[in-house]
């Protein structure tokens, strides 16, 4: 019985810690949005969102324990998105109007 309890606790412990971290990050993001940070506000909110995504993918989507090939595919999605943003903004931000 105590074995069952232990395995139950193990099952919940890691994901619950990740969930709590996500809630704390969310609260920080929400709270900071009301501070007069100007343009820094959106940067901070997006930085917190990036950390939240890292926590979610690493611990809840379990990329931490995934096969290398799976991590490469996940990273490929991110890489293509970075290329899309870089090329788009290289165009718009370098226009003379």
């Amino acid at each position, binding site marked *: 019985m105590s074995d069952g309890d232990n395995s139950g606790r193990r099952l919940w412990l890691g994901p619950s810690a990740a*969930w709590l971290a*996500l809630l704390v990050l969310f609260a920080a993001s929400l709270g900071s*949005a009301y501070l007069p940070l100007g343009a820094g506000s959106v940067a901070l909110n997006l930085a917190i969102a990036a950390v939240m995504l890292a926590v*979610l993918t690493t611990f809840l989507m379990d990329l931490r324990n995934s096969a290398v090939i799976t991590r490469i595919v996940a990273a490929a999605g991110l890489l293509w998105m970075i290329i899309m943003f870089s090329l788009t*903004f290289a165009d718009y931000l370098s226009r003379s109007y």
Partner: protein
Amino acid sequence: MTDLAGALREPWPDLRMQREGVGLGMWFFLASEVLFFGALICAYAVYRSFNAEAFRIAGEHSEIVYGSANTVLLLTSSLTMTIALRAATVRWRALTLACLAITAALGIAFLVCKGLEYREDLREHLFPGPNFPLSPPAAQMFWGFYWIMTGIHALHLTAGIGVVLVVFVLFERRVIPVQGATMEGVAIYWHFVDSVWIVLFPLLYLAGRS
């Protein structure tokens, strides 16, 4: 043994590799989904960079209480989905079923919340077109993105809830065993829908709060 034989499919030699295969396939699909949502977010970023003030004014009018409640609902559903997956892996059938049911309920609660929020938005005529109440005109672009992004996200969530309910019934009737690779794909997709919301929330709800 029969349970294991039912869970294992061709061509996999064992369940671990089968789960890895399903996970890899789902990640391939998600990489294409990242680009789908990425294109929308990129367009949003371009327009916002050229109309910062209009997006700030428009962003003040999104319903922060509904948005925040929905964030907590989805983050919690990711927790219950992870527990469902872990319980399925160790063949803890009752816990798997319970967590799947809670996950679907949290997803439905999100959609109900979203519906109430949409009603408030429409009451304030926050839909691009005639009678749009905010100026400058570029504020309509923010609300155009709001409806498209949240609408497509809600469609993805609806699909996720449908899949979770179908899998719940299949597990409950013992059509497929819980420890097979099914939960792997379902869980990864569900977390992806959550991760999209994590990005949409600051873009649509936190602009113009300070």
